[in-house]
């Protein structure tokens, strides 16, 4: 049984990686068990109170809130990268489960394929 891990590592509005990565996650859930891990600046994709009206980009943080409806029950994030950015789970639009490096290693090993963005 395929188990896909999607890793988001890029800040939300400087490139389309986050948005296109999220599109891939939504498609993945139609075919396999999918999990999401936010690392590095990818954590900013779910930062609260984003306002992109002046930027001309899409605020897709709202789509993360819909992930449970697609069967993605837990969104993981790197605890170290969260702390390094001065953030706590309360700053984010979705509940996240912060993981240490050993747990991340284990999470990666538990999946059949990793799709990094």
């Amino acid at each position, binding site marked *: 049984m*395929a188990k896909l891990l999607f890793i988001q590592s890029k800040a939300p509005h400087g490139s*389309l990686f986050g948005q*296109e990565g999220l*599109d891939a996650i939504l498609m993945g859930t139609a075919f396999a068990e999918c999990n999401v891990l936010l690392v590095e600046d990818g954590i900013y994709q779910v930062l609260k109170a984003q306002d992109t009206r002046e930027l001309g980009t899409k605020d897709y943080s709202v789509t993360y809130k819909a992930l449970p409806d697609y069967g993605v029950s837990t969104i993981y994030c790197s605890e170290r990268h969260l702390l390094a950015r001065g953030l706590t789970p309360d700053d984010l639009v979705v509940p996240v489960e912060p993981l240490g490096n050993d747990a991340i290693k284990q999470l990666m090993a538990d999946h059949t394929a990793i799709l*990094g963005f």
Partner: protein
Amino acid sequence: MKFGIVVHGAPYSSESSHSALHFAQAVIDTGHEIHRVFFYHDGVYNGSGLMAPPQDEWDLGARWATLAREHGTDLVVCVASSLRRGMLDSTEADRYEKPAASLAPDFTVSGLGQLIDTAINADRLVTFGA
């Protein structure tokens, strides 16, 4: 072993395309198989049929085409990524009433389902990021 290859980088903008080509060739040279090469994000620009690089540089478009012609490698560009970046085959060019198609004939336009299929059915998925 069956490899799935994902390319995120535009040609000449990062090492993504060069590295993916080297890797794809090595997969074939060592007797393995390529399930599919999926071009996503800026990687869809690798499908441009309009590249005309200087003669003393690698013609990345031509090299991808050669891979498809000589080894039957399945080259797929993501339709959503392609449309927003102006990589259209003749069907899409007609549909959106654009003056010309830009996608090379050795590439196929398809959906993200092909990326997921690659992730599920290849023995190894290798992403060349940008």
